[in-house]
């Protein structure tokens, strides 16, 4: 089982622990991650400026994967969504494909559609399977109470991504149950974290985050579990901004799902980059 690992822009910049823990978990499960040489930004961030250019960027990455003869696995849900939607559109729309290929030809590339795009959670659910993952659990996290923030771009738009039911993502939720951590729901579970508007209006994005954190605080969760680096930055790092802006202290640890799974597989917090997380995780780790 071999995939090109697309780490995108946010992970190398701020969330290396996500990649580190994903690599550890992959080793344990027999997933081979190949470095994605030459990859550019997936194009998501150009969407608001020019849709076609954003699609061209994604198409270039897809071409690189085709040339390597491998499928892509992403850790970022934004990259997953944009690459997947672009691939769908290019396969469905002959005119668009011709137009994009004419542009790609300037760099001697051509989109054919032979490489697929998957999010890391899909590999866990569809390729490895919960049963096989269960066999690798050596440290059940019975004492932990966790909530999830799966994020918007892994689930929506569901008619393009086909990951799970966005109103009730039971398959994704089953990933938490594997670790034996107690899984609790909270009122604002489906609320966007607010990260995408950080650059446009920071205070506005913090107001949304604050609603989310306040709702999580009510259920007294030990940790918030994420699968998107951008959501993670906002939920974790920006708890400091919430404190500065609204004088409210939450101090709720935020773990990448791969860190949670890695802990349950017996890896040490250090091996999973747990101390790279901004909100201190010491109390949480004492419980396991």
């Amino acid at each position, binding site marked *: 089982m071999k995939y090109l690992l697309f*780490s995108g*822009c946010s992970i*190398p*910049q701020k969330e*290396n*622990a996500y*990649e*580190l823990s994903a*690599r550890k978990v992959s080793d344990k499960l027999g997933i081979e991650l190949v*470095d*994605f*040489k*030459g*990859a*550019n*930004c997936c194009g998501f*961030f*150009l*969407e*608001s*400026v*020019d*849709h*076609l*250019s954003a699609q*061209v*960027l994604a198409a*270039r990455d897809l071409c690189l994967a085709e040339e390597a003869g491998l499928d892509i696995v992403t850790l970022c849900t934004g990259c997953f969504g944009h690459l997947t939607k672009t691939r769908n*559109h290019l396969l469905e729309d002959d005119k*668009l494909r011709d137009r994009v290929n*004419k*542009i*790609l030809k*300037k*760099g*001697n*590339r051509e989109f054919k559609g032979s490489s697929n795009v998957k999010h890391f959670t899909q590999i866990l659910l569809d390729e490895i399977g919960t049963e096989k993952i269960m066999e690798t659990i050596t440290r059940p996290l019975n004492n932990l109470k966790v909530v999830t923030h799966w994020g*918007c*771009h892994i689930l*929506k*738009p569901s008619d393009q991504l086909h990951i799970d039911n*966005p109103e009730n993502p039971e398959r994704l939720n089953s990933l938490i149950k594997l670790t034996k951590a107690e899984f609790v729901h909270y009122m604002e579970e*489906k*609320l*966007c974290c*607010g*990260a*995408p*508007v950080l*650059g*446009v*209006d920071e*205070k*506005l*994005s913090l*107001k*949304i985050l604050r*609603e989310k954190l306040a709702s999580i605080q009510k259920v007294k969760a030990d940790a918030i579990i994420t699968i998107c680096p951008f959501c993670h930055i906002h939920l974790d790092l920006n708890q400091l901004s919430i404190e500065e802006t609204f004088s409210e202290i939450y101090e709720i640890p935020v773990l990448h799902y791969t860190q949670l799974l890695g802990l349950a597989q017996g890896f040490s917090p250090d091996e999973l*980059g747990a101390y*790279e997380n901004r909100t201190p995780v010491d109390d949480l780790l004492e419980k396991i």
Partner: protein
Amino acid sequence: MSQKIRSLSVNEPLKSTQLDPKFKYEVAKEPGGEGLGYCFQCGKCTATCPIRRVESIYKPRQILRAALLGLREIVLSSDVIWLCATCFSCTERCPQGVKLADVMRAIRNIAVREGYIHPFFQAQGKMISEIGRIFEDDEFINEQRADLGLPPVPIVNLEEFKKILDSTKIKELLASKGSK
């Protein structure tokens, strides 16, 4: 930006001369804008919107209404079109199947062509078109990654990358002086 977000509300009676009846077709012609005409103004988008929840001036229903009415300049020059978080909640729940996040993107793309690019998206776009990614300073990042035993970030072949990207209109669109 919070201080100067301009609302889309029109307080005086509209004259037909202020309206551009072709605007809705212009939006519908953009990829993703096709469903605009199906909007029947139920307001489910606004009710489900996380931005609306904390910013009362942002109403997706109102933006679509203004676009349908043909308030072309008001819509394109408005700050509110840049507030969509692309969470796709409205797109997912719209009873008419309007892909609102895509309509909003279509409106933004037209606004950019008309010289109303938002400075944040402009800055980010420039970075991507110059270095192929949204962050620079790979040296520092690679040191951090090496400490964790991670490989360096991929190096984009910029010569080939730019040959491709420069064949789109992105450079021209990003060169705009910003809000007209």
